[in-house]
Structures are given as structure tokens and as C-alpha cells.
């Protein structure tokens, strides 16, 4: 038997965290429950974040949008603000898990799990997301790339909570592209993924580009070198081939049961070739 707490406010949460410092917190539980069953984590008590209103929903703040950490993937997919401003996130969410997993899983859980295969992460990286961390008597805001330290590792300290994710609206990019390579079409952990934001001119020139890869290193990977190889160039097979070759040397993937490192490396580059579909 295990205690499960369902606080309704942050104050209740802080109080619980003081009384049960060893408790494991969870939102949708789609990562935590799997690990509990497998005995990978032990938890004498669980605290569920689902009922805390402060952690729920999307808030349009003008230039910025705030997403409560416990907002489910399904809620995000249906949200008009996210649909309008962050189509790349929508693309990634729509291939995350399966409908039941999207009904339960949250963006905060995906971020704190900090898997290099987490599907929301490459989009959040290219969108320069920031996270808001709170504790009983304080709060801070920091870039996502500083929050995630390694596979499964974040800079969250004891008693700290991921409260939400900040995204800046930007009209700069006219191509939002996300592609995930998995072993099947649903319920698939990314073997490689690519998020790309491009500003492509009428003549087909890449004026701005931001790229991030999932599952090819300990965290989501970005490469200034590959971005520079594309910036200012017209989209062509040749340009993309060059960028792909650079990407293949930039990534540091591992072998695992889903794919070899060599395959991941090849495909990390190959996925750039898909951008040919945006040539003018």
C-alpha cells in the first residue's frame, strides 16, 4: 500500500513536500508508473499534480505564452493559441505516444523526464523555451537548455517544482517541420527526430534556421555549424547534402535495442534532406 496525495493548491503542495520530503511527485504518471512497476524507483508516497489549477492550461500573455506544467498533451493539441503560434509543437505532440498516453501525459512530465527521445523537447529547444521553477518561497526562470542537464537529469533541486514553460511568439519562421523516426507509427519512442524552424524567402533562400535533433546524444542536440551551413543558401539537394554530412559528424548517438548508433547518425543527416520539400 502506498499513500497518494491530491493537493488542490500550490500551498497544499508545499506543505505536503515539507511533511513528505521523500514523496515522488507526478502529473500524468505515464513515466512514473512505468518506473514504479519496473522497480526502477521506490516511492512510499506519491503526490499528484493533476488537481492544482495553477499548473493547468495555456495562458496567452501577449508576446509570450505560458503553459502550465501539468497541462496534458491532448489539451495542448486542442489549444488555439498553440495551434496558431507553435505548429511545430503540435506536430510533435500529435505523434507522441497514443491517444490514451496523450490524455494522461503532460508537458511538464515530458520535460522533467528529460529523455533525449522526449518528443516535445526538440520543438521546445528550437523555440528557445524557458522554464519556470518554483519552490515554497521562490521562483526562477531559466532557458530549457540549462534546465536539462543530461538523460533523466535536470537542475531541479529538492522541494522544487517545474511550474510551467514559457514560449515566445515569433512570426519569423514560415516553415515548422518536425519528423520523428520510430519503429512504428504510434507508441513509438523516437529513434531519431528532427525539429526545424525555417524562414524561407520567396526565392527559396533560407534566411533563418534553427535545428534540433532528438535521440542522437545525451540531450537534445543543436548545431550552430549545421545551421550556418544552411543560412543564406537556397534550398537544394546539394546544400542539404552538405548540411547532412556535417550533421552526421556533429551527432553522438549510441547503439541500443531500437537502432544502431550508425543508423541514427545516417538518418540524423538524412532527415535534413526532407527540407527539399520546402524548396520554392
Amino acid at each position: 500500500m502506498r499513500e497518494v496525495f491530491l493537493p488542490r493548491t500550490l500551498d497544499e503542495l508545499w506543505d505536503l513536500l515539507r511533511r513528505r520530503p521523500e514523496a515522488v511527485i507526478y502529473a500524468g504518471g505515464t513515466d512514473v508508473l512505468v518506473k514504479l512497476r519496473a522497480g526502477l524507483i521506490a516511492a512510499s508516497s506519491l503526490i499528484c499534480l493533476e488537481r492544482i489549477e495553477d499548473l493547468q492550461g495555456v495562458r496567452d500573455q501577449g508576446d509570450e505564452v505560458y503553459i502550465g506544467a501539468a497541462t496534458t498533451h491532448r489539451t495542448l493539441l486542442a489549444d488555439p493559441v498553440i495551434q496558431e503560434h507553435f505548429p511545430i509543437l503540435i506536430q510533435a505532440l500529435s505523434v507522441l505516444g497514443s491517444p490514451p498516453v496523450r490524455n494522461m501525459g503532460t508537458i511538464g512530465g515530458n520535460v522533467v523526464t528529460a529523455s533525449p527521445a522526449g518528443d516535445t523537447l526538440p520543438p521546445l529547444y528550437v523555440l528557445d523555451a524557458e522554464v519556470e521553477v518554483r519552490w515554497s518561497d521562490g521562483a526562477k526562470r531559466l532557458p530549457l537548455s540549462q534546465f536539462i542537464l543530461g538523460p533523466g537529469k535536470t537542475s531541479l533541486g529538492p522541494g522544487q517544482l517545474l511550474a510551467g514553460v514559457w514560449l515566445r511568439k515569433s512570426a519569423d519562421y514560415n516553415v515548422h517541420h518536425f519528423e520523428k523516426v520510430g519503429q512504428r507509427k504510434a507508441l513509438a519512442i523516437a529513434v531519431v527526430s528532427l525539429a526545424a524552424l525555417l524562414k524561407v524567402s520567396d526565392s527559396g533562400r533560407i534566411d533563418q534556421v534553427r535545428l534540433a535533433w532528438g535521440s542522437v546524444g545525451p540531450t537534445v542536440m543543436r548545431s550552430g555549424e549545421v545551421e550556418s551551413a544552411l543560412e543564406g543558401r537556397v534550398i537544394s539537394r546539394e546544400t542539404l547534402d552538405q548540411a547532412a554530412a556535417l550533421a552526421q559528424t556533429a551527432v553522438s548517438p549510441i547503439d541500443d535495442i531500437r537502432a544502431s548508433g550508425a543508423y541514427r547518425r545516417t538518418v540524423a543527416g538524412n532527415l535534413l534532406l526532407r527540407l527539399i520539400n520546402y524548396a520554392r
Partner: protein
Amino acid sequence: MPDDRIPQIGVVFPRTDALTKVRGEERFAADYYGRDLVWAGVKRAGIPHARLKSLDVDQARQVPGVIAVLTHRDIPGENRQGVVRKDQPVLVDDKVRHAGDALALVLAESKSALAAALKCIMCELEPLPGVFDPEQALADGAPLVHEDNPEGNILLKAEVKTGGDESVWDECAAVIEACFETPHQEHCFLETESGWAKVEPDGKIVIVASTQAPFRDRTEVAPVLGQDPTSIRVIAPYTGGAFGGKDGITVQSLLGLAALHAQGRPVKMWWDREESFVAGTKRHPARMYYRLGAKTDGTLHAIDVRLYLDTGPYDHLGGAVMTQAVEHSGGPYRIPHARLRGWSVYTNNPIGGAFRGFGVVQVTAAMEQMMDLLAVKLGLDPVQLRLKNAVRCGDKNCVGVTLTGSAGLEECLEKMARHPYWQNRQIWIQAAGSLKRRGVGLAAVMHAMGYGTVVPDVANAQVELTLEGKIRVYSGVVDMGQGNAATNLQIAGSILGQAPGQMELVQPDTDRTLPSGSASASRCTYTFGNALIGAAQALKERILQRASDLLMAAGPDELVLVSGLVRRVTTGQDIPLAVLAKWLTDTERIAVYRFRAPVAQERPAKDEQVRLHGLPHCIFSYGAHLAMVEVDELTGAVEVQGYLAITDSGRVLNPQTYEQQIHGGIVQGLGYALSEDFRVADGRIQTSDLATYIIPTAMDVPEMLSIPVEINEPTGPFGLKGVGEVAMNGPLPAVANAVAAACGGRCFSFPLTSERVLQVMTFES
């Protein structure tokens, strides 16, 4: 709401189990609990090959809530089980032969006490060098899995030879040689292996199991428990899927043993998914060497096949699977000169066992790719090449057996050749999008029905008019989800004129129903259906005769059976069946009928052992499959965008269940073709759960078209043949041929993961 329509043959008959299953009311074996329940579970070895030095269970016995910890020493009878060769220990006594072997059995008050006790069992295991490849297992000096087996690591070998000697190869215009490798496949039924057992006050051991073969189970469990088989009762509810993985002992012997130590309390065992993976059986991996020769016009002339099937450490049904593979290894073609050889080989890998397709899946994968390789070499159309060689009724098949049953492969292939998917393929291929390549591939399939010649393929049906005036059908063959229980009602109802609401069904139960063999081998409705027709007709005759006597009619011709009553049509008089039943004695109210499936008289294999294991068969189902695939140039990902299966399995009794069998076979076959990459390293499963072993989701499955070619099978119930397995054989070769057409190169190891396909594409360009 009972359906009040009298079932007819050839139209959709709603499944009797649909509503109860959707509502969660149907009780599967895994749903049995009861008061004072005892949980049972086993300690698994975790290493593939080791000598058991000692087993210390004292600490486990001290765990609070533990009722008993049993080892091989507690087995009252023989500690060996197996369908054919008894080579598998219930609890290890000398050696561990695969990582899933059971070492000790624990009975506990709760699941948590059970888990705690299992952790406390200390086993001293001296690791032994293992053998993990079927060909290496045959080499001199290979570690032996069973030291006492006179054939070393060979469980069984089979050879069939027809026609002339080596010189026939000189008569061929084209010769193709290739080697194919297919992997293990996990059944992944929803309901993992489970059961419940209890010793009744009169000493009878009742076992409720998720099983395909309750009657055979009884004869396997009895010697282990040192009991007479009749003192054991096995009850087989609907299974939550089985696919061959429950054709043989899983939990039954362990549960029987546990029940003997539970003081009359009910005992439950239910493997979790991980245990199902490690301890359950899998489709046999195969390495297949093929040589195929043909004349310039494509007429097949000679074939040479060597098959190595990895049966893991135990026979299970490995010998039978291998002989079935040999029998089908030349495909559904006339080939005058054949040398077909197979070896079923012991290794320390997971246990090979029955799985929908039963050896035919593997060889069809190889042979149908050989046909495409040959078509390319000779520049022939792949449909025409197959049509040219397709077996017809009266032909000899590749093992030299004259086909006397219906054989509709030609009709299937002709329909395929005319179908828009085939006719318009070039247009579809050319419409491939940016960075995509498309291909269309074919496969011709056949599948034998039943047990073969020696093991009697028998069913005994029983139908009763109850005192309440209902028709009660005693199902002898388990319904593992395929719908044969409903089909039994459809058959009996159509003969006896009774709507479903007027009928009752008794599920297989060794104390209540009659032995009718296993739910396997595409035989369920063929064999049991034939028996059921006999029983239902006998009961009908008796009812009408007795009603005629009672009404002083001139004869039974004046009477008809309609739902719930007998009507004298000449006068309009009705007698409710409930009234009539009272005029019959208890024995008169029951009709039974036995049917044995016909057998082939030829003896293609010299070795009597091979005949005993099933070769040859005489009735086959056939089919032509087509897959439309799109391959991604950047990732190697294969997407199946269209699928067509044209099937000859005789007449269709219920178009809905028929289509479900075809669809199910295709989906399971697509998983096998594309994503189910079961990996074992040195005897240890690497893909040990459903997060890493990738079965298809609904998103991965295309629109599937199923078209029946309804040729009457004269020996079949209402003209049908078996449909349970035939569709499983097509997807791998059809998809492989389509991928090869798209990529210009071919993989010879399966499944066709994106990684393998990308490699082939890179190599070709």
C-alpha cells in the same frame, strides 16, 4: 436481447460472445479468483544453460505469508512433459536449459508475499557453455542440450525426395540459390498464460486454464502428479488469444502441483508479460537454404531445400512444426524433382512452439521470394510464373501427394491478375511522392489442414435437447477468440431450426464435453463442424420422429422444427420443445457423433517418425496475396499502403468471422514482416517486453481487402476448409517482394526494419 433469427449458413451470424466480452462479463481463465485464494508463482533460471548444484528454499519458506515452496523433489510423478517427446521438466532437476526454466514453485497468501519469497530462493547454478545457433548446434563438439539424446542436438530430421538425381539440375535453364533467415515471433496474446486450480473434497483436481487443448493437457498433467487422467478435470473458457502459444502445457502442471499443497484452497497462477516472454513458446526461427531450377518458360523443374529450425531446449511441437515446414517448402507448385530436408535442432534459446502458421510461415517466406527472384531472372511476370506452376486438383504437390481435395490457387491468382491493385500498379508506383519509392509484391500461399496421417484428427460432438426445451451444444474445441463457439451455434441452429436465444453453449470441459482435439491446425470448424452436423442431424431426426409418433402423424415429413417448437405443417399443431423433451428419456435427448478427418495414403518420407509428426496432409487452403508498399529513401521506413488477400478456404459459413481470420492473419504477418524483431543474445531475450518488441498498432495497418474464392470442399462441413492460418503466410513474402521491387535490392534477414531496408538501399545506390 437474444437474437430471434434462425441462423443460416453463409450469412453473418453475430458472435454469441461479443456482448459478454464487450461488457467485461465473459470469464476468462485469468478472471478466476475465489475465497481463500492462494497465489502461485515460479522462480525462473535467468541463465540459459547451467547445472543445478543446489537449491536453498529455507529462507523463502520463512517469508510471512508463504504457504509452501516446492522443488522437483515434491513432484509425485514424472518430472517431464511435452506434447510429443517428453523432454521438459516441470521444475528443473538436473540442468537449466534456457533462461525461462522453472526452478521452484511458491504458494503464498498474497502476490506481495509471493514476490518476496521468489526473491529469497537461492540457486547454485554452475554455468555451462551454451549453444545458440541451430547449425552450430549440429557441429561436432557443440555443447549438448540433452546429453541423453542419441541424436545429439537433433530433435528430429526429415527428408523427402521425389524425381531424379542431381543430373536434373543440368536440365534447368535458370537456377536460383539463396539463404533466408526468419526470427522468433512472440504470440503477444492479450491474456497472458494463466489458470486456477483446486482439489475438490472428493479428491478431483480441477484446473481452469487458458489453453487450446484441455483433453491433451489432462493426459500431460496426470503423469506429473502421479494421478489417473480421469481424476483431473480441465475446464477451458474462451481464451484471450492463443495463436498456438497455449497449445501445450504452460501453467497447468504447476497449478496441479500447487493445488495438491493448498489444502483444498483455490490456487491462481498468472504470468505477467515479462514472464510470458521469457517462459512462453515462440515461433521457431529458421535458416533456410534454397535452390530452385526452372525451364526457360518458367516451368519449375527442381528444388533443393535445407531447413534449420531452432526449437530451443524442448520439443514442445518442434518436430511437427519442422515436418510441416518441409511439407510446404516447395510452395503450392508442381515440381517434379525435389529434395526437401529439415532439421529441428535443440539450442539454449527460448522454446520454439506452435504459432499460427506452424512452420509454413517460414518456408513460404523463402519460397515466394525465390519465385520472384526466378521471375526477375527469366524476365517473366510474377503472376504468370505462379499460375504456370500452380497446383490443381489431381496434381502432385511438392512432396508427391496427389491432391484430391479442392484446390483453388489458380482461381485466386487469376482473380489477383484481374484486380485493379495489380492491373493499375504502374500508375500507383509512379505516383510515389518526393523521397519515396513504391513497389507491389505478391505471394501465393497454401496451408494444410489437420494433424496429418497418424495422430487421429477426430472430433466428438454432442447436442442435447434440454428439459427446458433448449438446444445445448457441447463444444469440444476451445474458442480462443476466433469465433468457433458461435459458429457451432450457427451450425446447430441452422440444422435444428433454432434461434440463438433457444440455444446454449457448453465450453470445453473434460467432465462435460467430449474429446475433440486441440484448437489448432486450421481444423476447429472443419473437424468439429463435421461432427456437429452429424450430431445435430441425429437429434433432429429423433425429435421429429418422436413428435410424429406423439401426434400420430403419418411420418416425420409432416413436421418441421422452428424456434422453440415442432410444428405439424399439415394441421398447424405446435408442440413446444419443452413439452416434447419430457416425453424423451435422458439418453434420447442427447445425440453424439464422431468424425475423423480423411488422411493421405502416400508415404513421401521413408522415416516413420516423420509420418508420425504429420507429413503428409491431404487437404489444403490456398491464397494469393498482394502488398503495396512505400519505402522512405531517407529512413528506410516501409509503409504498407494497401493489402489484398484472395483466399480459397472453401465455402464461407460466416463472412464476418471469415474476414476477421484473414485480417488477423495479415496483421500478425505484417508485424512479422516489418517490426517484430525478436532479439536473443546468448540465450537471453533482449526485447523482453512490449516496449521493445514492436507489434503493429492500428496505425500501422492498411486497409485490407479480403476476397473469398468459394470453391466447395466436398469433405468439409457445408463445403468449408480451414481459414485460421492460411493468411498468416502471405504478408512477409508479399511485403518483401514489394520492398525488393521498390528498392532494387533484397534483404535476406527479417523483419524488414527501417535499418535493414536503408542498408539495402544504400548498397544498391
